[in-house]
């Protein structure tokens, strides 16, 4: 139902396409923007334009980046021998927050999902293989999601990389810190038991 003047309705429609924004919220945001001073509104418009203009994928690791190389790939202090393979650029942020990892990353831009027709060819697998030798990588950490697609991806990459004589590791699975044992599902708890460690 179109009740607003053309440009306002266009704005509402565009906002309504954003994730998590329903028609009602779109309307609310649109009216907020209408009320805003022109400068403030244009700053938002400009930020979007700049992002779309300048941000691309890093040519090495496929993280989002301003320019051909992302900040992590261009940082000389990072360990070049270890690469952490993740599904999405957002996963890099999650791993970075831990402060436990000092190597570089490789973003696959997805995970294997046969039912959706996504196989290795649709992911940045060839690009990963091409990095191994020139960068002198000797450990690959498979840091894909611990769900069925992520596991399938890790298995596939493991099978591909192992014969190359590299150290291939998979991130551990287990119980989240601060949780209750009784709510853990069998798979997670099973994995946690399997991956138990001796106390020192």
């Amino acid at each position, binding site marked *: 139902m179109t009740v607003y003047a053309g440009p306002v309705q266009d704005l509402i429609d565009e906002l309504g396409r954003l*994730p998590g924004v329903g028609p009602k919220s779109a309307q609310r945001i649109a009216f907020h923007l209408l009320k805003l001073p022109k400068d403030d509104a244009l700053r938002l418009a400009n930020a979007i334009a700049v992002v779309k203009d300048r941000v691309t994928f890093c040519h090495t690791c496929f993280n989002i980046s301003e320019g051909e190389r992302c900040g992590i790939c261009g940082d000389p202090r990072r360990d070049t021998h270890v690469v952490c393979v993740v599904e999405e650029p957002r996963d890099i942020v999650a791993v970075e927050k831990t402060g436990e990892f000092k190597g570089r990353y490789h973003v696959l831009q997805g995970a294997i999902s*046969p039912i959706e*027709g996504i*196989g*290795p060819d649709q992911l940045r697998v060839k690009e990963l293989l091409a990095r191994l030798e020139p960068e002198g990588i000797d450990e690959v950490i498979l840091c894909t999601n611990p769900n*069925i697609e992520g596991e399938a991806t890790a298995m596939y990459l493991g099978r591909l990389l192992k014969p190359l004589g590299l150290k291939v590791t998979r991130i551990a699975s287990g119980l989240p810190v601060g949780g209750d044992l009784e709510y*853990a599902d*069998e798979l997670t708890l099973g994995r946690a038991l399997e991956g138990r460690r001796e106390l020192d």
Partner: protein
Amino acid sequence: MSRGTLHRDEAVVLRTYKLGEADRIVVLLTRGRGKVRAVAKGVRKTKSKFGGRLEPTSHVAVQLYEGRELDIVTQAETIDRFRAVREDLDRFARASAMLETADQLAQEGEVNPRLHQMLVGALRTLDASDSPLVVPAFFWKVLALEGYRPEVDACVQCGADDVSLVAFDLDAGGLLCRTCRRGQSVSPEAVALLQMILGGRLNEALAVPPSPATHEVDHLATRAVEHHLERRLRSVTVLDH
């Protein structure tokens, strides 16, 4: 069916879609209500109560709250984990082909307990054995369930059952003798396997080791399913290398 009621059912998770920030829509093949789409809230969070229970291939007991468009999963408990399927890439790919087929065949709102039962059975078999004929047998059996049971005991054209059958035609829906032959040619070993699968000797067929004939039956089954669905199965080719 009335809204706002709770249902308990048994289901296999066919596939999932991301929804919003941390939710997923899970497509379930339930025993009591056919294909159902339901929202699993917060399932992508690490501390979700569902954990890994609502992933494709999982066989679960669920409690669903009936919503306006989509149901909501309120509880889920594992019945079968299918560990070997999850931890073996090749079996996972094969399981995916079965899930994709079940997803394509099942219609929402159409109760089909037999399909559910066959899928659970096939997944259990795949989890326990590495027989090359699990998936093709499932394909042939569901086609038969759908009313497309191929003729494998006599020539589908002339009805002769005392001659050797040498070809399979998808349009005719069965095997053909030398005189009527058209479509794809099949070996005598493959014919024997087809007769085992569709003639109530499934266990015998599942015990057969991989051979060119099992490969033939597999290929033919995939083509027959694709012919029936009128679309390609994505899962089949994705991991072929």
